[in-house]
């Protein structure tokens, strides 16, 4: 048994290794292009700091909104007896497959100063494009599905016998949600929230259309690329890679703290671990 398993693992290792190489090479290559002192100077420009603040703040707001609205939706999809359930789930997946640019155009037509929702608000002097609101709207559109889908998968994987047992003991639906469903589903949801945050941080296409100003880090990088070429874009690209690595590390730590080693929405089915 053991002897025949080994070549399989070697072949799989090669397959996976080559793919990892394709992911790793561009990052290593970026470091070979490093001009550390020049990069530091570029990142200390006021524009870069402002973009970083804009990105950090908007993505944090977006993540809070996604969690507050997305987790209940995920629970509803997993446990509520919704009519046309598959349709709603499909709808949630839609923004994940629509290109950001297309999403941005759809959002602009709705929330722009002359859009279906933007126009009445405009009469009250409320603008939803070209400001933080526009950036958050774009980020929500592309990354909220990660939270909803991970919450849906997390709640659906909770053993319903546990919830039923609590119900027979007289717990209310809210108590069951708070004490059983949410804690059990949380590691998956937390991983989903982290993924959504990374996605929001890196959002470019929809943001460019909906809120060119104030620049987020990806839009700032594009402006630098257009106006200063590679020398302008590389330091910002480096910053984005560092931010992504930080996010992945935080996600790993979060999972470690909650007792799960992998920052993914799927838990190991090792016996004894779920109890």
């Amino acid at each position, binding site marked *: 048994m053991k002897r025949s398993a080994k070549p399989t693992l070697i072949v799989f290792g090669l397959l996976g290794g080559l793919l990892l190489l*394709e992911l790793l090479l561009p990052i290593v290559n970026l470091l070979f292009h490093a001009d550390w002192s020049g990069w530091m100077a570029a990142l200390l420009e006021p524009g870069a700091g402002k973009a970083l603040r804009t990105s950090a703040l908007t993505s944090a707001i977006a993540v809070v909104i996604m969690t507050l609205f997305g987790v209940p939706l995920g629970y509803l999809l997993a446990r509520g007896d919704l009519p046309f359930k598959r349709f709603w789930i499909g709808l949630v997946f839609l923004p994940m497959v629509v290109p950001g640019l297309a999403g941005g155009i759809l959002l602009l037509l709705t929330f722009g100063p002359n859009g279906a929702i933007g126009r009445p608000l405009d009469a009250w002097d409320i603008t939803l494009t070209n400001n933080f609101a526009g950036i958050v709207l774009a980020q929500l559109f592309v990354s909220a599905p990660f939270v909803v889908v991970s919450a849906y998968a997390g709640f659906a994987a909770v053993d319903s016998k546990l919830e039923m047992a609590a119900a027979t003991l007289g717990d209310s639906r809210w108590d069951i949600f708070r004490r059983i469903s949410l804690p059990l589903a949380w590691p998956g949801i937390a991983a989903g929230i982290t993924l959504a945050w990374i996605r929001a941080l890196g959002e470019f296409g929809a943001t460019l259309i909906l809120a060119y100003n104030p620049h987020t880090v990806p839009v700032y990088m594009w*402006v630098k690329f257009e106006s200063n070429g590679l020398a302008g874009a590389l330091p910002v690209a480096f910053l984005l890679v560092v931010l992504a690595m930080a996010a992945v590390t935080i996600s790993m730590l979060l999972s470690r703290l909650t007792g799960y080693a992998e920052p993914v929405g799927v838990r190991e089915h090792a016996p004894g671990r779920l109890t």
Partner: protein
Amino acid sequence: MKRICLSMSFGAILGTLYFVPMLLSCANRTENRKVSVLYAGSLATVMENGLGPAFAKASGYEYQGEAQGSLGAARMIHDRLRSPDVFISADPSVNEKILMGSQNGELVTWFLTLASSQLVLAYNPSSKFVDKFKAAEAGTLLWYEVLKTPGLRFGRGDPRTDPKGYRTLFLFELAGRFYQLPELPRLLGAPINPAQVFPETVLLARVQSGQFDAGIFYKHEVVAHKLPFVSFPPDINLGDPKFSAAYAQTSYTTPSGGHVVGAPILFTITIPRTVKNKVAAEAFVRFMLTSNELLKEFGLGNVEHRAGGDITQAPAELRSLSEGKYQP
């Protein structure tokens, strides 16, 4: 036996990962029948719906175009991120500053002026201020009076990334002098006023979808997208080489330190050193230089094909199409 199996599967893996993309790129490489053209973004409709297909039909070559902002495109060639057969810029100075000279590796040694354009004020026909725009179009109301209307939204290009962006600044500066209204440029706010400044395609989308009432565009863009527009006098629209001296009275320094001086809007065409298919590139440039009627149909102005840089470096057949020297 096992070892052979292993090395075979290793080969298979390498094959799928590295050779398949290579094969795909080979299949894509009908090299000698294809011409790749990197061109100024505002020409997208003209190139993709007009001149590109017309060239393909007339010559039998496959036309492959890519639209980028002129500055961005030149930077991409400079940084070796693109290697087009032909480069069309919306500003002669983009060639001179980013691609020509030994400091830029002589990526471009010559260029020919291809066509001219002018700035216009395009508006959305369903804007609530449409009557005012129509009055300006008919000449009964001055255009800047329309732009002063409270609640009217108008946009313009970003002077950091787009020649049209700084040309709009020149337009307003010239207008201030022409109408003797020094406060006129204040309609724009700061050079990079976040409420007005957008990337080329985004601005067009905003005006077309009615999210913005109007925008400053090149005439050929507006003609291509069938938007109504108000023309400016040639003294200020940057479209008439006769006013070169007046245009040159204006200038703008980008935040990154680049200095640009006002000049007529001229598109230039060249074959950069990155060319892979010289024959096709030559055929394409010749086709462009002899397509005045088509260019005009798409809202561009016809100009004498003046040569910038060292025209002796150009292929003989193109050299013969040049009509004098280009003076900035």
